[in-house]
């Protein structure tokens, strides 16, 4: 704590979209309470601090750093190491830092194919000389460098020692405030815990739809069905990640009849969210012959995209096979 008794707080975004920052702004008037309780020492999105300022800090200077965004480039990883050094508590904040999130779907591909698509074949790009990013380039005035783009998206936990994880894409404001209060009050759970979410339950616990015994004869894609708002979406054959996803969001998606996409990550006792969801989905297929079963599960067109939508980098296999 600083001499004024205020918490020294840092926030950083690695490979992120800025949604987590907006989520903090979503605290609304409570952000004033946050300001009253904490000095913000680093927050590129909102305040003018440079990396040099952070490097200049003594080790462990910041009490808490909320780190959002995945580890996509060497710069992200360097910042992770730097902020670990400069902070007492490093929090993986939001789905990207926690488990890779949507940008983690890039682990279905490798650097080469991404570069080709983005810089060469994209319809909105004009690149006749076929330039691809290079880590350093000699301009007439001098050398310019950019970070190295990894083949694989990693989570913060995979490159650095993380104290706490706050799941969600983005984390919901009340949950963020609960975390802030826990930090201020000093009653944090053991290191490595997931905070800012239910400690034990899954989204079904918060979902208002009526669930029954499941017998799924067909999997529906959203445009193939108008769901019954009273019945569990999964029961209706719409793949919903709710049963395999930690509670905490308040079942936002299902409350408007959209199936849960699983952004709050696996349930506490689950090693691999996608495998758990896959097993549940396949188990309730109402097929008594191998042919029927194969036909029905073939309706799941994109298994990784369906079951690992937010958690591919954090899954057991991390990514697709590299050639």
């Amino acid at each position, binding site marked *: 704590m600083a001499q004024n008794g205020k918490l020294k707080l840092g926030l950083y975004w690695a490979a992120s979209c800025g949604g987590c*920052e907006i989520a903090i702004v979503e605290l609304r008037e409570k952000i004033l309470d946050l300001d009253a309780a904490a000095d913000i020492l680093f927050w590129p*999105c909102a305040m003018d601090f440079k990396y040099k300022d952070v490097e200049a800090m003594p080790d462990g200077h910041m009490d808490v750093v909320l780190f959002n965004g995945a580890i996509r480039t060497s*710069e992200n990883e360097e910042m992770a190491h730097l902020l670990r050094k400069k902070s007492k508590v490093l929090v993986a904040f939001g789905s990207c830092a926690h488990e890779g999130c949507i940008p983690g779907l890039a682990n279905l591909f490798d650097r080469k194919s991404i570069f080709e*698509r983005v810089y060469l074949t994209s319809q909105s790009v004009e690149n006749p000389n076929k330039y691809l990013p290079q880590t350093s380039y000699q301009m007439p005035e*001098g050398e310019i460098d950019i970070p190295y783009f990894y083949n694989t998206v990693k989570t913060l936990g995979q490159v650095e020692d993380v104290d706490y994880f706050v799941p969600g894409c983005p984390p919901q404001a009340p949950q963020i405030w609960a975390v802030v209060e826990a930090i201020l009050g000093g009653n944090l759970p053991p290191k490595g815990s997931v905070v800012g979410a239910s400690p034990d339950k899954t989204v079904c616990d918060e979902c208002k739809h009526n669930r029954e015994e499941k017998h799924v004869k067909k999997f529906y*894609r959203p*445009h193939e069905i108008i769901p019954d708002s009273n019945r569990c979406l999964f029961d209706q054959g719409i793949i919903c990640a709710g049963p395999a996803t930690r509670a905490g969001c308040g079942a936002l998606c299902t409350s408007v009849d959209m199936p849960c996409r699983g952004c709050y990550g696996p349930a506490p006792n689950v090693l691999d969210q996608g495998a758990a969801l896959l097993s549940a989905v396949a188990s309730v297929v109402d097929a008594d012959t191998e042919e029927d079963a194969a036909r029905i599960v073939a309706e799941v067109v994109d298994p990784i995209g369906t079951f690992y939508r937010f958690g591919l980098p954090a899954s057991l296999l991390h990514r697709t096979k590299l050639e």
Partner: protein
Amino acid sequence: MKKISIDPITRLEGHGRIDIFLDEEGDVANAYLVVPELRGFEKFAEGRPVEELPRITPRICGVCPEAHHMASAKATTRSITSRYPRRAKSCESCSTLPFTSLTTPSTFTSSERPTLSWGRMPRLPSVISWAWSTRWV
């Protein structure tokens, strides 16, 4: 040649750095905006079910997810069908409203900035249809 790096550029959405090269006189010889970030949505959207895109593309930018969401929702709708309900169309046209409501406060409170012309505000019928649709949808 001297190089000044503004690293990172702050108070905006996105990652960036400005490398400024000064000549002997200390004048700016050249400046480069360096964007050290890439996530590759163009690539990993490939192979996903089309209806998933409205929930993938908003993660391009968490500040303006609406724009990405609506763009892909419209594209998805049109890729599946050319005929869709009026109400869906109404929902589409009301989509710029949150964006406007996000920026209008600045528009009307900041005296230094030029006000937006009415031409860029949502047309009145869309507002009515939005109000209508929120009451019933």
